[in-house]
């Protein structure tokens, strides 16, 4: 256990991530609306010691009721659209919606048109756009830290 923790401490020291610039935080809720699982892997990776989004006050929360930001991944399938809308409805205001990855942005979709509900833009108001197939954890981290900085300045 101590060996493990020392290993992790070493990784953190070698990476020397930039210090948090704000004391604010944003609670994130993720909804997979029909992804290939790539965006989920990369979003999960933003918690690893190389990026460690939690140190900036960016945490994934279990319920949309506790969330400030809805992170939507995937080509919005007709089968996931009702659950996506229900998650959005459950969020308190003010709230932000992020399209995470090219599919959610409606780019280069593959599949049958009748299985797709359209780009996220046509379904919910999109505030944040994070392109990539899938966007790398570095890109996701930079985008979300940017949102946090903008939100805390705007207060």
């Amino acid at each position, binding site marked *: *256990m101590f*060996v*493990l*923790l020392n*290993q*992790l401490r070493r*990784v953190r020291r070698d990476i020397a991530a930039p210090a948090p610039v704000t004391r604010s935080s944003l609670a994130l809720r*993720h*909804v*997979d*609306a*029909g*992804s*290939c*699982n*790539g*965006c*989920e*892997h*990369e*979003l*999960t*990776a933003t*918690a*690893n*010691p*190389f990026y460690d989004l939690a140190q900036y006050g960016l945490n*994934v929360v*279990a*319920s*949309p009721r506790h969330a400030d930001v809805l992170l939507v991944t*995937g*080509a919005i*399938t007709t*089968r*996931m659209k009702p*659950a996506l809308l*229900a*998650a959005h409805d459950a969020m308190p205001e003010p709230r932000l919606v992020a399209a995470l990855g090219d599919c959610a942005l409606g780019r280069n*979709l*593959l*599949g*049958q048109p*009748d*299985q*797709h509900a359209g780009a996220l833009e046509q379904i919910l108001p999109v505030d944040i756009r994070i392109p990539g*197939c*899938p966007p*790398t*954890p570095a890109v996701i981290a930079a985008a979300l830290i940017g949102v946090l900085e903008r939100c805390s300045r705007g207060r």
Partner: protein
Amino acid sequence: MTVRRAEPLAVTAVAATGWQTACLVAHRNGERFEGLFATAGDGETVELRALFSSPAETRLIVCKAGDRSVETLVDDIPAVAWDERGAHDLHGVRFAGHEPLRPLLDHHAPLAAWTVPIVGRDTHEVAVGPVHAGVIESGHFRLHVVGERILHLDVRLFYKRRGLEAAAAGHPLTTSLAYAQRACAACAVTNSVAYAQACEQALGLAPDPELGRARTLLLELERVYNHLHDISAICAGVGFAAGTMAYATMKERAQRLNERLTSHRFLFHTVRVGASDQTLDAATVQRARSELRELRDEHASTWRQLQFTASLQARLGGVGILTRDDADRLGAVGPAARAAGIHRDLRSESPHLSYGLFEPVEAPDTPGDVASRTVQRALELDQSFTLLDQLLAGPLTPGRTQTAFDPAEFGVGRVESPRGATVCVVERDEGRLRAMHLRTGSYANWPALAHATAGNLLPEFPLINKSFELCYACADR
């Protein structure tokens, strides 16, 4: 061990009335069921295909079901259950004797139609999903419980269905690879190679050794980052953050290596039908080799630490048991089946890849619980590091194929994904794809996962789920 050569796919055409008999004869002869697929035929007809394989041969049994009806295989081959339910939902095929034939993909069906009725004192249902509490793919679970004890689990997937297979039809064979790759990021190489091999068999092409080596290298790179991810996820399943982060760190390093070698963290766009453009010079392979050796050592030392963490070990043993008989009966594949004592791995029957005389690694003890699935992955990781070290012994040059036999209507590709045997059957119409059928290791294992959940406590479900770590995208397509 039988070493197979490049040859056309053996196809046996039967009448609809002889469907059940032909398939059951294959099954009784010891051929292993690897998938049942339906394709829309001319007019109102539906055509059925069943894939069976033995170490010596893979065989496709095909039939035209004029009135959309055949006799079921499910009583003798329980592994066919999801395939038949899916063929019914998508193509309206009736499987006489499959009672009740519950909906699988049909999300309009009422709850009572797709769940197993569980009644009795204090029984109730816990509904989970499709949106889960963590960063997880979407799917719905109905857990039938008494108190904390799970009696039965009904799984409803296919929320992420994009219709990839149907959309791929009609396009040129070479471009449709994009649809197979898109099915799942974590199995992108596996699905692409299975598709490419299926096309090559249909086109009568045999790969040269360098093409086989390029694909083997990519497949093992994919296995390494996935297995690292899965061990990290199992630690997360019991809330052991130090283990989760240690393996997440190794996964990140593996994915950064993927990016340096192929310009993509998930190895996208590295597989082509009929050729390979991947090149790596001597200096690059040497650097990759030393990075992988470092990762292997770090895995070894971290794994040792996990062995001495009593709070972790106490949560893994005896949970989510999949017995050998059940694994065999339900058609389980991959590390989950090997952890239950079925020592089968498609890498040992892959003539077009550079596995040589591959023997799947065997754990000393295989009770089929969460602990043994974790151990199995750790052992396979070590084996993959050894394979990669051999594969990276010299620079990588482009690979090609050559014509080896006459083109045919069908082709099949069979590849061992990090989650198990993945098969892809293609139906060819000149240079175009008539139909693609992808049956991934995840799809094959979902019924086994549901079965292994019964009898456990409700809070153990996430851990059991993570110990299989099946893709939803791969199953939904």
